[in-house]
C-alpha cells in the first residue's frame, strides 16, 4: 500500500481531534445557553414600576435609545456580586439601565436598592415571572442590550464582570448609539 509509511498518523490525528474538542469544552460554560432572542424584537411587557406601582413601563417606552435590561432580585446572591459594577456604570450615564425585579416582593426589592444603591433609571416588578419567561430568563442575574429599534443585541447570562462590560457590552452600546 502506498500510504503505509503514513499509517501511524491515523491514530495520532484521531487523538488530536478528540483532544482538541475536549480541550475546547473545558472553557465552555454549559449553563450559558445561547438565546434565540438575540437579533429579535424585545418581547413586550407592561409592568408596574417598583417605586411608582401606579405607573407602568414597557419596552416600547424605550424606543429611540439604546438601553440595558438587567434582571435582578433581592433574593439573588450573585446579583450582589455585579451590583457595584452596575452602580458605577449608572454614574457614567453612558446608557440607561432598566431593572426587572424578577419574582420578588416589592418591599424586599425596594429595601435592597436602598441598601445597595440604585443604578436603575427605573425598575419594574415581574412578580409572577411571566415577563422573565418571555425574555427567556433562566438564571438571574441576566443583562440584555437593546438597540434603538427595540431589538435585543446581546445577552449576558449570570453576573456582569468588568471584563464583559469593558470588552463586549460597552463597545456594543457605543456602536449601537453611533449608528
Amino acid at each position: 500500500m502506498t500510504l503505509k509509511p503514513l499509517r501511524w498518523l491515523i491514530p495520532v490525528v484521531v487523538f488530536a481531534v478528540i483532544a482538541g474538542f475536549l480541550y475546547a469544552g473545558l472553557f465552555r460554560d454549559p449553563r450559558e445557553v445561547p438565546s434565540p432572542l438575540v437579533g429579535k424584537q424585545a418581547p413586550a411587557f407592561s409592568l408596574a414600576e417598583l417605586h411608582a406601582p401606579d405607573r407602568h413601563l414597557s419596552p416600547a417606552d424605550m424606543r429611540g435609545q439604546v438601553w440595558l435590561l438587567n434582571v435582578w432580585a433581592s433574593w439573588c446572591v450573585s446579583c450582589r456580586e455585579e451590583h457595584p459594577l452596575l452602580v458605577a456604570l449608572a454614574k457614567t450615564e453612558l446608557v440607561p439601565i432598566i431593572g426587572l425585579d424578577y419574582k420578588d416582593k416589592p418591599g424586599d426589592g425596594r429595601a435592597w436598592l436602598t441598601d445597595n444603591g440604585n443604578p436603575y433609571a427605573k425598575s419594574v416588578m415581574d412578580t409572577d415571572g411571566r415577563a422573565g419567561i418571555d425574555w427567556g430568563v433562566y438564571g438571574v442575574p441576566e443583562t440584555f442590550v437593546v438597540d434603538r429599534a427595540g431589538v435585543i443585541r446581546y445577552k449576558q447570562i449570570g453576573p456582569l464582570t468588568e471584563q464583559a462590560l469593558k470588552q463586549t457590552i460597552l463597545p456594543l452600546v457605543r456602536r449601537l448609539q453611533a449608528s
Partner: protein
Amino acid sequence: MSVTRRLLLAACVAIVLAPTAHADDALDLRLRHLESGLRCLVCQNQTLAESDADLAADLRREVRELALAGRSDDEIRHYLVARYGDFVLYDPPLKPVTWLLWFGPFALLAVGAAAWVAVGRNRRRSRPDGAAEFEAEARRLLRAGATAPAEAGSGDAARKPLDA
C-alpha cells in the same frame, strides 16, 4: 371539627370534583408526557416534569395554561423554543446545524466498516513470503498422511512404552 363532619365535608368535596377528575387525568397525562421531553434550564439534566426548580414550576404552570387554552403540543414546544432555544428539547430537531449530531454516529460506523473491509481485503492479498510453498507442502503432507495409515499405526506403537 368532629370526625363525622370532616368525613361529610370530604364526601362533598369528592362529589363536586368527581365529574372533572377524568378530564384532569387525561390532561395531567398529556402534560406529563409533554414535560418529560422538555429540559429544565436551571438543572440541565432534569426534565421539566421532574425538576423542583422554581423556574420549572413556573414553566409547568405556563405549559398547563397553554394546554387549557387549547394549544397543541407542538405549539407549546414552539412557545418554549422561541424563548429558550432548541436546548429545551430533549429531542434535538433535524436541521443543518444538527446534521453532525444526528448522522455523525452513522458516518463513524460507516468509516469503521469501510476500514474493517479494507484491512480484511489487504490481509488476504498481501501474504507473507513463502506462504504458497508452505501451503502446498502442508497439503502434500496431509494427503500423504491420509493414504498411509500404517505410518500412523507405527506412531502409536512407538508411543506405547511411554504410556505403560
